[in-house]
């Protein structure tokens, strides 16, 4: 089955909704708002359940059981935690820069939420399937870094400043590498649109079709992605043994929770982008579920299985490796990942030019 | 060794009945004796510095070890002046004396001349008195049975 249609269920929904309700522009906006609410709910649930997953996975890595009291298998634990954080008093230092302090977490979550909107969850299910999707994600996720930076700065805490500076340093460096890794695939796909990239992979995932350079790009992407989502071994911005809590030292209650959720959503985004670019997105491996009907549902299932595996890989990293030092972090980027990535992209270009990729 | 030290420092006193070689030295010869013990006799490891309150005098007891032969000597110095006892710092000979001397300063009130940071280390800066002295009393917090 070759999917050629690029129908977007969301745009169909918007057209249908505004037609039935018939308020012209108002109906369209209402439809957008409805979609946004769906995404917000997804954002909250995904964030909370990723926290739950992280705690459970960490527990099993550490010979423990993890949260298993609230609800069946402890599934309600993180919701309870979120409620607790909501009801908590928000206190901070007196001398914080109020504007920056309070803008910071909005920036972080808004950036995460916007990046979420371009990711195709299934065939034709992406809220905002623009033709420069990959580029858009890279650009928007940089805004999130600004949130960490000004959060660290605005809270007027030395640990916060150190954490914020470290995060800025780290993100600027590693975005280069992840960008190059993404570009390697874009060279093959010839498109920046995420749904188009997935459609191209019907003949085989890019990780397989691009063989050596794609594999290298994948490894680079995973490393850079771990760094961008601030997770061990690259958790220097909040490195708890060094900085207490880094940039969110002075945040409490929900302010802290936004940072925390955004971190997990970022992990989700990184994994989703990785899956979309390298592992065929929502496509079934070898098309095994293609004939079973309901392609969008199977798309969802395969997408979330793949993303889950990728997230598990990142968690596995986190619970195994020690943290790098700040200079080693930069050495890794500028002396290893970046040159290799540059050579890799040239290699890929040559391969694509001579049609040596599958 | 005893003879050598006796010749050099006429005022040195050796204790008789103790297991370790123990000597008491007047304050003015303290630094030169310690330097000599380190440089000539190889007692290069300052094991501990103990502040003492002998009731009448304050004192410091230094335990030195030779890291090659693992012999130990004990050097004592007494301060008859309880109000402002003062002595040269050992910081320049053994770096470890830094913290030990600060502790003694804090808890016994013995001042070390030439020490780089002569501040209280255990107690707060506004603490009155030196609690390890025998005559220090806190009526409200100490229960002595």
């Amino acid at each position: 089955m070759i999917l050629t249609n690029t129908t977007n269920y969301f745009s169909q929904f918007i057209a249908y909704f505004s037609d039935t309700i018939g308020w012209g522009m108002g109906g369209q906006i209402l439809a957008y708002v409805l979609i946004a609410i769906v995404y917000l709910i997804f954002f909250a649930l995904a964030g909370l359940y990723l926290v739950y997953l992280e705690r459970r996975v960490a527990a099993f890595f550490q010979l423990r059981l993890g949260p298993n009291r609230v609800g069946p298998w402890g599934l309600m634990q993180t919701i309870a935690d979120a409620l607790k954080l909501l009801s908590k008093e928000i206190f901070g230092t007196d001398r914080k820069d109020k504007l920056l302090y309070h803008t910071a977490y909005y920036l972080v979550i808004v950036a995460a939420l916007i990046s979420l909107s371009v990711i195709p969850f299934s065939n034709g299910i992406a809220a905002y399937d623009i033709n420069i999707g990959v580029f858009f994600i890279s650009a928007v996720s940089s805004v999130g870094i600004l949130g960490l930076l000004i959060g660290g700065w605005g809270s007027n805490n030395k640990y916060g400043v150190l954490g914020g500076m470290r995060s800025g340093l780290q993100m600027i460096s590693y975005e280069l590498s992840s960008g190059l890794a993404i570009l390697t695939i874009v060279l093959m796909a010839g498109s920046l649109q995420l749904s188009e990239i997935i459609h191209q992979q019907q003949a085989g995932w890019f990780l397989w079709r691009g063989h050596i350079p794609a594999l290298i790009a994948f490894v680079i992407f995973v490393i850079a992605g771990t760094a961008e989502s601030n997770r061990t071994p690259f958790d220097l911005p909040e490195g708890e043994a060094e900085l207490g809590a880094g940039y969110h030292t002075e945040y409490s209650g929900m302010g802290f929770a936004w940072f925390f959720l955004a971190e997990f959503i970022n992990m989700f985004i990184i994994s989703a982008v990785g899956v979309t670019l390298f592992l065929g997105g929502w496509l079934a491996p070898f098309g095994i579920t293609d004939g079973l009907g309901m392609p969008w549902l199977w798309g969802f299932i395969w997408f979330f299985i793949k993303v889950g595996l990728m997230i598990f890989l990142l968690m596995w990293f986190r619970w195994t490796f020690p943290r790098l030092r700040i200079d080693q972090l930069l050495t890794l980027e500028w002396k290893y990942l970046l040159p290799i990535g540059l050579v890799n992209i040239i290699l890929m270009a040559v391969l694509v030019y001579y049609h040596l990729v599958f | 060794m005893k003879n050598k030290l006796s010749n050099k420092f006429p005022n040195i006193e050796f204790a008789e009945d103790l297991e370790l070689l123990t000597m008491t030295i007047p304050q003015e010869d303290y630094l030169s004796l310690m330097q000599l013990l380190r440089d000539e006799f190889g007692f290069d490891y300052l094991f501990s510095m103990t502040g003492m309150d002998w009731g009448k005098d304050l004192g410091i007891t230094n335990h030195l070890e030779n890291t090659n032969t693992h012999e130990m000597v004990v050097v004592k110095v007494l301060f008859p002046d309880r109000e402002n006892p003062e002595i040269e710092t050992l910081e320049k000979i053994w770096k470890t004396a830094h913290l030990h001397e600060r502790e003694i300063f804090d808890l016994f009130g013995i001042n070390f001349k030439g020490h780089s940071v002569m501040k209280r280390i255990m107690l707060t800066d506004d603490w009155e008195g030196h609690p390890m002295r025998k005559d220090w009393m806190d009526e409200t917090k100490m229960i002595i049975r």
Partner: protein
Amino acid sequence: MEQVIYNSADLKSQEYFINMGPQHPAAHGVLRLILTMDGEMVKNIEPDLGYIHRSIEKQCEHEGYKQIIHLTDRLDYLSSHMNNEAVALAIEQAMQIEVPERVKVIRTIMGELTRIASHLLWWGVMGMDVGALTTFMYAFRDREMINDIMEETCGARLTMSYSTPGGVMFDLHPNFVNRVKEFIPHLRSVIPKYDELLTGNIIFQKRMKNVGFLSAQDAISLGASGPVARGSGVSCDRRIIEPYSALSKVDFKEILYQEGDNLARYNVRMKEMYESLHIIEQLIDNIPDDGIQAKTKALIKLPKGEFLQRVETARGDFGVYIVSDGKKNPYRVKFRSPGFSNLNTLMEIGKNQLLGDLIAISATMDFVIPDIDR
């Protein structure tokens, strides 16, 4: 057009202070270090102690000799048995009590078990300090087995108060020998896994190698002892220099590394666990059976004099210096704690290091704050 030439010397950075502690995840307690920082670089370290100072030395002046023992548990709670043993040995030496052979063997076995437990905890926390959070639980799993063994015999898991002047508090539990024998092969099988998980890890190696260099001369001058000094090649193991209890009967090596960096200190402790297991193996099979308590008077009075006893705890050279004036209370007790001198070492070698390195160095120093504050 005006040309502005920036000179790198004009770009001034400003030094600032950071209070690391008293509540800090890497301080392992209430150690407060006032750091003078320049960017990420630590320029000066100034400790502020006393957050857990209980003036145990002063308390000891008002306690009988038997009653001192339980206070020493609270010094370095991770090597509580060795601390107990040090005081007991000092009192026995002063009173010239000959303790039964069984007591000596039990004390040595217990001491080595405590050392392993302490090193295991250190290993777990070391991993956490450099960011590998999983090591902690793995180490605690094995440490728990030792704690269970301790609990069965001593009735307590951490502050055991097990040695008394002239003997030990309880006889060994009947299960003790079997459980220790089960534990030895278990630990021997898991330490290589630990090595694979953390020691061999490239990130860990890069964090540890050539960081926090301490030369042998400095180690001596700074009063370093225990694994910190042995990592710099200074032979200072009291168990070999002056074998106490049953240590003279066993054969073991002193682990010495010449490098003096973090990795050397790390390796010393990892290898010491094997040596401790080796010591226990030699003693566990034939524990003599001649009583657990030498005859002592109910009220111990030390003869007039000064007594010094040094033992090797998990952290280094622990000294008990008792000045007695012949009464039932000591006139003055000084606990020379290894952590106190090792803190001085940290102050010296932590300068001009990155903040992350300072954490790693202080992790290899293995501080227990009550031991520093006393």
